[in-house]
């Protein structure tokens, strides 16, 4: 290991941090929204949709993450021209930033886990909390938004922190799609000097710091949400 090469790679890796953060947190936001809808449909057994989603989630869960990403990018390149023609758009495949495809892939990778975490949270809230809302005349939506959702988040934060960590690590897989990220940035910096060990260690260091920060923020939120409220054990 040469320090000089290491710092070269580290700098390249750090430059790409925003790329991974964007991928991680936009995927997270979409997964939380979609995952909540899926969790509600599955918990309240909405006809047709619930069994369909059961199967879809079970199947998706079984695929390795990098395989899903590969299928996404392949499906995208194979169908790009058809889609463009269908939508009457005047763009070529080079005009589209591949990060969007990466995010779609990461959503497919993370959605089953995150929706399962949300379902667990929903099931942990006693039925009486809904009934209390209804009894003062609140609608189902108002009760969900003001009473259930905040309590759910308190319950799931520890597990969700873990999901976010896993998601952050998955963002390093997008280089199989040719999308740039921390790992790829670091490797690219290494090609000239052929200093791959330095590159990998630099990327590892950056992911460790990011993971550490996610964990810290999770702990902080946990403490905040728990303020004054009984722990569900």
């Amino acid at each position, binding site marked *: 290991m040469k320090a000089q090469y290491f710092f070269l790679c580290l700098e390249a890796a750090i430059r790409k941090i925003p790329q991974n953060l964007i991928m991680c947190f936009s995927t997270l936001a979409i997964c939380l929204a979609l995952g909540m809808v899926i969790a509600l449909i599955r918990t309240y057994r909405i006809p047709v949709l619930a069994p369909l989603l059961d199967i879809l989630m079970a199947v998706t869960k079984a695929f390795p993450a990098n395989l899903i990403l590969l299928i996404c990018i392949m499906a995208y390149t194979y169908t790009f021209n058809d889609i463009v023609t269908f939508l009457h758009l005047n763009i070529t495949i080079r005009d589209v930033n591949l990060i969007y495809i990466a995010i779609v892939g990461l959503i497919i990778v993370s959605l089953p886990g995150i929706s399962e975490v949300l379902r667990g949270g929903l099931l942990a809230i006693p039925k009486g909390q809904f009934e209390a*809302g*209804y009894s003062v005349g609140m609608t189902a939506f108002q009760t969900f938004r003001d*009473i259930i959702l905040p309590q759910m988040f308190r319950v799931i934060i520890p597990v969700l922190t873990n999901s976010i960590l896993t998601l952050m690590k998955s963002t390093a897989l997008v280089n199989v799609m040719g999308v740039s990220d921390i790992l790829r940035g670091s490797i690219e910096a290494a090609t000239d000097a052929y200093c791959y060990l330095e590159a990998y260690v630099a990327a590892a260091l950056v992911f460790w710091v990011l993971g550490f920060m996610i964990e810290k923020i999770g702990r902080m939120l946990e403490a905040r949400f728990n303020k004054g409220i009984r722990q569900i054990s």
Partner: protein
Amino acid sequence: MLEIKNIHKNFGSLEVLKGASIRVEAHQVVVILGPSGSGKTTLLRCINFLEHADKGELTVGDTKIDFETVKRREIREVRKKVGFVFQNYNLFANKTAIQNVMHGLIVVKKLPKAEARKKAEEALAWVKLSDKLDYYPSQLSGGQQQRVGIARAIAMEPDIILFDEPTSALDPELIGETLELMKNVAKRGITMLVVTHELSFAQDIADKVIFMDGGVVVEEGTPDELFNHTKEERTKRFLARILSTKTIKTKV
């Protein structure tokens, strides 16, 4: 004020309510008695649609509803007119005492925040909890939680408040103060429909006592009629059983 006609409710193959009918006039306190499993809780829950009855008619104030064809809008209308005090309190766990009382005022009654807060403070002062406004339910005793529950119901100014065994989850020494508070609710002229096993409460406060068994009303009348001039054999047996397990002070 409140009238239920011929209500039916099944849980799967279990027939819980088999055509009970109940009438509560404005400003009355009506107590429902009955053995465990007779459908008292189910009856109350059907009134504000926490449970959906299969058949029957419900009238609350000037809203008349057929259980079979009830619409979402009608359910909300009824829930705004009917308050509910739960056996296990069911306070919003993520909200403080004052927020528990305020929230419905803001979200349902659309009061400005300052006004809602003032009303909530008044309601909590009335249940003697002014010193606990910012406590979360988990930091309050059972009796205090139930008082917040009562304040929350009262603050919404419903036409009628339903109480489902409000004291049965409480420690014996807290039952007295909660019953006392309920007597004060009655004195305010609030219409009440109360399920309880506290015969002394029924005797002192009720305008009418209803005895339910097996999903129907077996007997009803004034406390004096029901307790001292009992007509039905089933009622007599039930009262004898309760009196043998509880020592109550009889004023009559």
